Protein backbone atom coordinates (compact mmCIF):
# COMPACT_ATOMS: atom_id res chain seq x y z
CA UNK A 1 0.00 0.00 0.00
CA UNK A 2 2.99 2.33 0.45
CA UNK A 3 3.48 2.29 -3.31
CA UNK A 4 -0.14 3.38 -3.69
CA UNK A 5 0.26 6.34 -1.38
CA UNK A 6 2.84 7.80 -3.70
CA UNK A 7 1.24 6.63 -6.92
CA UNK A 8 3.20 8.59 -9.52
CA UNK A 9 1.93 8.76 -13.12
CA UNK A 10 4.42 6.08 -14.23
CA UNK A 11 3.43 3.76 -11.40
CA UNK A 12 -0.27 4.27 -12.12
CA UNK A 13 0.32 3.52 -15.81
CA UNK A 14 2.01 0.28 -14.74
CA UNK A 15 -0.99 -0.58 -12.56
CA UNK A 16 -3.42 0.18 -15.39
CA UNK A 17 -1.66 -2.01 -17.95
CA UNK A 18 -1.04 -4.89 -15.51
CA UNK A 19 -4.58 -4.87 -14.11
CA UNK A 20 -6.16 -4.50 -17.55
CA UNK A 21 -4.23 -7.54 -18.82
CA UNK A 22 -5.33 -9.58 -15.80
CA UNK A 23 -8.91 -8.35 -16.15
CA UNK A 24 -9.03 -9.37 -19.85
CA UNK A 25 -8.08 -12.96 -19.01
CA UNK A 26 -10.52 -13.11 -16.11
CA UNK A 27 -13.40 -11.74 -18.18
CA UNK A 28 -12.69 -14.22 -20.96
CA UNK A 29 -12.68 -17.19 -18.57
CA UNK A 30 -15.86 -16.13 -16.78
CA UNK A 31 -17.77 -15.32 -19.97
CA UNK A 32 -16.68 -18.61 -21.56
CA UNK A 33 -17.84 -20.65 -18.58
CA UNK A 34 -21.05 -18.58 -18.24
CA UNK A 35 -22.06 -19.78 -21.72
CA UNK A 36 -21.93 -23.36 -20.46
CA UNK A 37 -24.03 -22.82 -17.30
CA UNK A 38 -27.20 -24.94 -17.50
CA UNK A 39 -30.07 -25.90 -15.19
CA UNK A 40 -28.87 -28.88 -13.19
CA UNK A 41 -25.38 -27.47 -12.60
CA UNK A 42 -24.24 -27.05 -9.01
CA UNK A 43 -22.34 -24.00 -7.76
CA UNK A 44 -19.39 -26.22 -6.91
CA UNK A 45 -19.39 -27.89 -10.31
CA UNK A 46 -19.30 -24.56 -12.16
CA UNK A 47 -16.59 -23.23 -9.84
CA UNK A 48 -14.56 -26.34 -10.67
CA UNK A 49 -14.95 -25.51 -14.37
CA UNK A 50 -13.84 -21.93 -13.70
CA UNK A 51 -10.82 -23.18 -11.75
CA UNK A 52 -9.91 -25.52 -14.60
CA UNK A 53 -9.99 -22.63 -17.09
CA UNK A 54 -7.93 -20.42 -14.77
CA UNK A 55 -5.42 -23.24 -14.33
CA UNK A 56 -5.02 -23.27 -18.13
CA UNK A 57 -4.19 -19.56 -17.84
CA UNK A 58 -1.55 -20.55 -15.24
CA UNK A 59 -3.26 -18.77 -12.34
CA UNK A 60 -1.70 -19.81 -9.02
CA UNK A 61 -2.56 -16.91 -6.69
CA UNK A 62 -5.84 -15.27 -5.83
CA UNK A 63 -7.55 -12.41 -4.07
CA UNK A 64 -10.45 -14.83 -3.97
CA UNK A 65 -11.12 -18.10 -5.76
CA UNK A 66 -14.22 -18.32 -8.00
CA UNK A 67 -17.67 -17.90 -6.50
CA UNK A 68 -20.96 -19.00 -8.08
CA UNK A 69 -24.32 -18.08 -6.60
CA UNK A 70 -27.66 -19.44 -7.82
CA UNK A 71 -31.22 -18.21 -7.39
CA UNK A 72 -31.99 -16.67 -4.02
CA UNK A 73 -28.31 -16.95 -3.06
CA UNK A 74 -27.57 -14.09 -5.51
CA UNK A 75 -29.12 -11.84 -2.83
CA UNK A 76 -26.91 -12.85 0.13
CA UNK A 77 -29.97 -13.18 2.36
CA UNK A 78 -28.20 -15.72 4.52
CA UNK A 79 -27.47 -15.25 8.25
CA UNK A 80 -24.01 -15.46 9.79
CA UNK A 81 -20.55 -15.18 8.31
CA UNK A 82 -20.54 -13.97 4.68
CA UNK A 83 -17.25 -15.72 3.99
CA UNK A 84 -18.50 -19.17 5.02
CA UNK A 85 -21.98 -18.81 3.46
CA UNK A 86 -20.66 -17.46 0.16
CA UNK A 87 -18.56 -20.56 -0.56
CA UNK A 88 -19.80 -22.54 -3.58
CA UNK A 89 -22.46 -25.00 -2.47
CA UNK A 90 -24.18 -28.10 -3.87
CA UNK A 91 -27.25 -25.98 -4.66
CA UNK A 92 -28.59 -27.01 -8.10
CA UNK A 93 -29.49 -24.32 -10.63
CA UNK A 94 -33.15 -24.46 -11.65
CA UNK A 95 -34.76 -23.42 -14.92
CA UNK A 96 -35.12 -19.63 -15.13
CA UNK A 97 -33.02 -18.83 -12.07
CA UNK A 98 -30.51 -16.01 -11.92
CA UNK A 99 -26.84 -16.70 -11.35
CA UNK A 100 -23.69 -14.71 -10.58
CA UNK A 101 -20.08 -15.74 -11.29
CA UNK A 102 -17.26 -13.80 -9.61
CA UNK A 103 -13.50 -14.45 -9.57
CA UNK A 104 -10.40 -12.48 -8.57
CA UNK A 105 -7.14 -14.10 -9.65
CA UNK A 106 -3.67 -12.55 -9.45
CA UNK A 107 -2.01 -12.77 -12.87
CA UNK A 108 1.65 -11.84 -13.33
CA UNK A 109 1.46 -10.13 -9.93
CA UNK A 110 -1.53 -7.94 -10.81
CA UNK A 111 -5.03 -8.51 -9.43
CA UNK A 112 -8.25 -8.78 -11.42
CA UNK A 113 -11.82 -8.92 -10.15
CA UNK A 114 -14.67 -9.55 -12.57
CA UNK A 115 -18.26 -10.65 -12.07
CA UNK A 116 -21.02 -11.63 -14.48
CA UNK A 117 -24.77 -11.94 -13.90
CA UNK A 118 -26.95 -14.17 -16.04
CA UNK A 119 -30.13 -16.26 -16.18
CA UNK A 120 -30.25 -20.04 -16.65
CA UNK A 121 -32.92 -19.93 -19.37
CA UNK A 122 -33.23 -16.59 -21.14
CA UNK A 123 -36.84 -17.28 -22.20
CA UNK A 124 -38.09 -17.73 -18.65
CA UNK A 125 -40.48 -15.33 -16.94
CA UNK A 126 -37.85 -14.26 -14.43
CA UNK A 127 -35.64 -13.20 -17.33
CA UNK A 128 -37.69 -10.01 -17.77
CA UNK A 129 -37.05 -9.01 -14.15
CA UNK A 130 -33.40 -9.88 -14.57
CA UNK A 131 -33.18 -7.83 -17.77
CA UNK A 132 -34.56 -4.85 -15.83
CA UNK A 133 -31.85 -5.32 -13.20
CA UNK A 134 -29.18 -5.38 -15.90
CA UNK A 135 -30.66 -2.23 -17.45
CA UNK A 136 -30.37 -0.53 -14.06
CA UNK A 137 -26.78 -1.73 -13.71
CA UNK A 138 -25.99 -0.35 -17.18
CA UNK A 139 -27.45 3.03 -16.22
CA UNK A 140 -25.59 2.97 -12.90
CA UNK A 141 -22.31 2.17 -14.62
CA UNK A 142 -22.75 5.14 -16.92
CA UNK A 143 -23.38 7.53 -14.03
CA UNK A 144 -21.01 6.10 -11.45
CA UNK A 145 -17.91 7.34 -13.27
CA UNK A 146 -19.16 10.93 -13.17
CA UNK A 147 -20.20 10.63 -9.54
CA UNK A 148 -16.78 9.24 -8.59
CA UNK A 149 -15.04 12.16 -10.29
CA UNK A 150 -17.16 14.72 -8.45
CA UNK A 151 -17.56 13.03 -5.04
CA UNK A 152 -16.11 14.85 -2.04
CA UNK A 153 -15.56 11.50 -0.35
CA UNK A 154 -15.91 7.78 -0.89
CA UNK A 155 -18.76 7.81 1.62
CA UNK A 156 -20.62 10.41 -0.46
CA UNK A 157 -20.20 8.29 -3.59
CA UNK A 158 -21.55 5.19 -1.80
CA UNK A 159 -24.56 7.15 -0.51
CA UNK A 160 -25.30 8.40 -4.03
CA UNK A 161 -25.14 4.89 -5.49
CA UNK A 162 -27.40 3.51 -2.75
CA UNK A 163 -29.91 6.33 -3.23
CA UNK A 164 -30.00 5.70 -6.98
CA UNK A 165 -30.68 1.99 -6.47
CA UNK A 166 -33.39 2.68 -3.89
CA UNK A 167 -35.06 5.29 -6.10
CA UNK A 168 -35.34 2.62 -8.79
CA UNK A 169 -37.32 0.54 -6.26
CA UNK A 170 -34.53 -2.02 -5.88
CA UNK A 171 -32.61 -3.42 -2.92
CA UNK A 172 -28.99 -2.52 -2.19
CA UNK A 173 -27.08 -5.78 -1.81
CA UNK A 174 -23.41 -4.73 -1.89
CA UNK A 175 -23.58 -3.43 1.68
CA UNK A 176 -23.88 -7.11 2.70
CA UNK A 177 -20.29 -7.80 1.58
CA UNK A 178 -17.53 -7.89 4.20
CA UNK A 179 -16.60 -4.27 5.07
CA UNK A 180 -19.88 -3.24 3.34
CA UNK A 181 -17.86 -2.29 0.28
CA UNK A 182 -19.05 -0.78 -2.94
CA UNK A 183 -15.43 -1.00 -4.12
CA UNK A 184 -11.91 -1.91 -3.06
CA UNK A 185 -8.58 -0.68 -4.34
CA UNK A 186 -6.55 -2.82 -6.73
CA UNK A 187 -3.40 -0.70 -6.39
CA UNK A 188 -0.23 -1.60 -4.53
CA UNK A 189 0.31 -4.99 -6.19
CA UNK A 190 2.58 -6.89 -6.47
CA UNK A 191 3.27 -6.59 -2.76
CA UNK A 192 4.81 -8.59 0.11
CA UNK A 193 1.92 -11.05 0.32
CA UNK A 194 0.65 -11.34 -3.25
CA UNK A 195 2.41 -14.69 -3.74
CA UNK A 196 1.10 -16.20 -0.50
CA UNK A 197 0.04 -19.83 -0.91
CA UNK A 198 -3.59 -20.75 -1.46
CA UNK A 199 -5.58 -21.69 1.65
CA UNK A 200 -8.76 -23.62 0.90
CA UNK A 201 -11.49 -21.84 -1.08
CA UNK A 202 -12.85 -18.30 -0.96
CA UNK A 203 -10.97 -15.23 0.28
CA UNK A 204 -7.23 -15.71 0.18
CA UNK A 205 -4.28 -14.37 2.16
CA UNK A 206 -3.27 -11.68 -0.40
CA UNK A 207 -6.73 -10.12 0.00
CA UNK A 208 -6.89 -10.42 3.77
CA UNK A 209 -3.32 -9.24 4.42
CA UNK A 210 -3.29 -6.45 1.81
CA UNK A 211 -6.48 -4.84 3.07
CA UNK A 212 -5.62 -5.36 6.75
CA UNK A 213 -2.28 -3.66 6.09
CA UNK A 214 -4.07 -0.91 4.18
CA UNK A 215 -6.42 -0.21 7.09
CA UNK A 216 -3.55 -0.10 9.59
CA UNK A 217 -1.46 2.20 7.36
CA UNK A 218 -4.49 4.43 6.84
CA UNK A 219 -4.94 4.94 10.57
CA UNK A 220 -1.27 5.12 11.53
CA UNK A 221 0.20 6.89 8.54
CA UNK A 222 -2.65 8.52 6.64
CA UNK A 223 -2.38 6.20 3.64
CA UNK A 224 -5.37 6.24 1.23
CA UNK A 225 -8.29 4.21 2.55
CA UNK A 226 -8.48 0.88 0.65
CA UNK A 227 -12.29 0.72 0.40
CA UNK A 228 -15.22 2.72 -0.86
CA UNK A 229 -17.88 2.21 1.80
CA UNK A 230 -20.11 4.25 4.06
CA UNK A 231 -17.15 5.37 6.19
CA UNK A 232 -14.62 6.07 3.44
CA UNK A 233 -12.94 9.46 3.90
CA UNK A 234 -11.31 11.55 1.19
CA UNK A 235 -11.96 11.80 -2.52
CA UNK A 236 -11.79 8.50 -4.41
CA UNK A 237 -8.42 8.24 -6.15
CA UNK A 238 -6.77 5.37 -7.98
CA UNK A 239 -7.91 2.05 -9.41
CA UNK A 240 -10.88 0.37 -7.81
CA UNK A 241 -12.75 -2.89 -8.38
CA UNK A 242 -16.31 -1.53 -8.19
CA UNK A 243 -19.13 -3.99 -7.56
CA UNK A 244 -22.59 -2.48 -7.24
CA UNK A 245 -25.02 -5.27 -6.43
CA UNK A 246 -28.78 -4.84 -6.48
CA UNK A 247 -31.81 -7.04 -6.09
CA UNK A 248 -35.52 -7.40 -6.60
CA UNK A 249 -37.72 -10.16 -5.24
CA UNK A 250 -35.66 -13.35 -5.24
CA UNK A 251 -33.14 -12.06 -7.80
CA UNK A 252 -29.81 -10.35 -7.35
CA UNK A 253 -27.45 -9.01 -10.01
CA UNK A 254 -24.12 -7.25 -10.07
CA UNK A 255 -21.21 -6.31 -12.24
CA UNK A 256 -17.63 -5.91 -11.16
CA UNK A 257 -15.34 -3.70 -13.20
CA UNK A 258 -12.24 -1.61 -12.72
CA UNK A 259 -12.67 2.15 -12.44
CA UNK A 260 -9.75 4.57 -12.75
CA UNK A 261 -10.23 7.82 -10.85
CA UNK A 262 -7.18 9.99 -11.38
CA UNK A 263 -7.58 13.76 -11.39
CA UNK A 264 -8.96 14.72 -14.80
CA UNK A 265 -9.08 11.13 -15.97
CA UNK A 266 -12.01 9.06 -14.71
CA UNK A 267 -12.95 6.02 -16.79
CA UNK A 268 -13.88 2.37 -16.69
CA UNK A 269 -11.28 0.00 -18.12
CA UNK A 270 -14.34 -1.76 -19.63
CA UNK A 271 -16.99 0.88 -20.36
CA UNK A 272 -19.81 -1.50 -21.41
CA UNK A 273 -21.65 -3.84 -19.05
CA UNK A 274 -19.61 -7.10 -19.18
CA UNK A 275 -17.89 -5.58 -22.21
CA UNK A 276 -14.39 -5.73 -23.58
CA UNK A 277 -11.53 -4.47 -21.38
CA UNK A 278 -9.98 -1.57 -23.29
CA UNK A 279 -7.30 -0.75 -20.73
Amino acid sequence: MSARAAAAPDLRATYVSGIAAAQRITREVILTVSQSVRPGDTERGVCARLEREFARAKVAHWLHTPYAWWGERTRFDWRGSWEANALPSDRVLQEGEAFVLDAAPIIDGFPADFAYSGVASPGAEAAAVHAALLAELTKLKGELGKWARDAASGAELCARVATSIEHAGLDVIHTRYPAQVLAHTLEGFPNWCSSAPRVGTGFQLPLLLTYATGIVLHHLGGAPYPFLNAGAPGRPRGLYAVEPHLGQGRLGAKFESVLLVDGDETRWLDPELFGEVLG
Partner: protein
Amino acid sequence: MTESLTKPRRSRAPLGADLAILVLGIWGFLRQCLKSWLRAEKGPDELESDR
Protein backbone atom coordinates in the same frame (compact mmCIF):
# COMPACT_ATOMS: atom_id res chain seq x y z
CA MET B 1 -15.80 33.28 19.14
CA THR B 2 -17.43 32.34 15.84
CA GLU B 3 -18.48 28.75 15.26
CA SER B 4 -17.58 27.28 11.93
CA LEU B 5 -20.63 26.73 9.79
CA THR B 6 -18.90 24.15 7.63
CA LYS B 7 -18.77 20.59 8.82
CA PRO B 8 -15.16 19.45 9.23
CA ARG B 9 -14.22 16.80 6.69
CA ARG B 10 -12.90 13.57 8.18
CA SER B 11 -9.40 12.53 7.18
CA ARG B 12 -9.67 9.07 8.73
CA ALA B 13 -12.29 6.34 8.52
CA PRO B 14 -14.09 5.55 11.82
CA LEU B 15 -11.63 3.51 13.90
CA GLY B 16 -14.28 1.39 15.60
CA ALA B 17 -15.78 0.35 12.27
CA ASP B 18 -12.35 -0.59 10.94
CA LEU B 19 -11.51 -2.61 14.05
CA ALA B 20 -14.78 -4.47 13.48
CA ILE B 21 -13.80 -5.06 9.83
CA LEU B 22 -10.45 -6.53 10.96
CA VAL B 23 -11.91 -8.76 13.67
CA LEU B 24 -14.86 -9.95 11.57
CA GLY B 25 -12.56 -10.42 8.58
CA ILE B 26 -10.21 -12.71 10.48
CA TRP B 27 -13.15 -14.57 12.07
CA GLY B 28 -14.85 -15.00 8.70
CA PHE B 29 -11.63 -16.18 7.09
CA LEU B 30 -11.11 -18.83 9.78
CA ARG B 31 -14.72 -20.06 9.42
CA GLN B 32 -14.35 -20.15 5.67
CA CYS B 33 -11.11 -22.18 5.92
CA LEU B 34 -12.73 -24.66 8.29
CA LYS B 35 -15.79 -25.06 6.06
CA SER B 36 -13.81 -25.40 2.84
CA TRP B 37 -11.42 -27.95 4.35
CA LEU B 38 -14.28 -30.02 5.79
CA ARG B 39 -15.92 -30.14 2.35
CA ALA B 40 -12.73 -30.83 0.42
CA GLU B 41 -13.50 -34.52 -0.02
CA LYS B 42 -14.52 -33.83 -3.65
CA GLY B 43 -11.73 -32.38 -5.77
CA PRO B 44 -12.27 -30.22 -8.88
CA ASP B 45 -11.73 -33.21 -11.23
CA GLU B 46 -14.39 -35.26 -9.48
CA LEU B 47 -16.82 -32.34 -9.55
CA GLU B 48 -16.12 -31.83 -13.23
CA SER B 49 -17.17 -35.41 -13.94
CA ASP B 50 -20.58 -34.66 -12.36
CA ARG B 51 -21.68 -33.13 -15.66
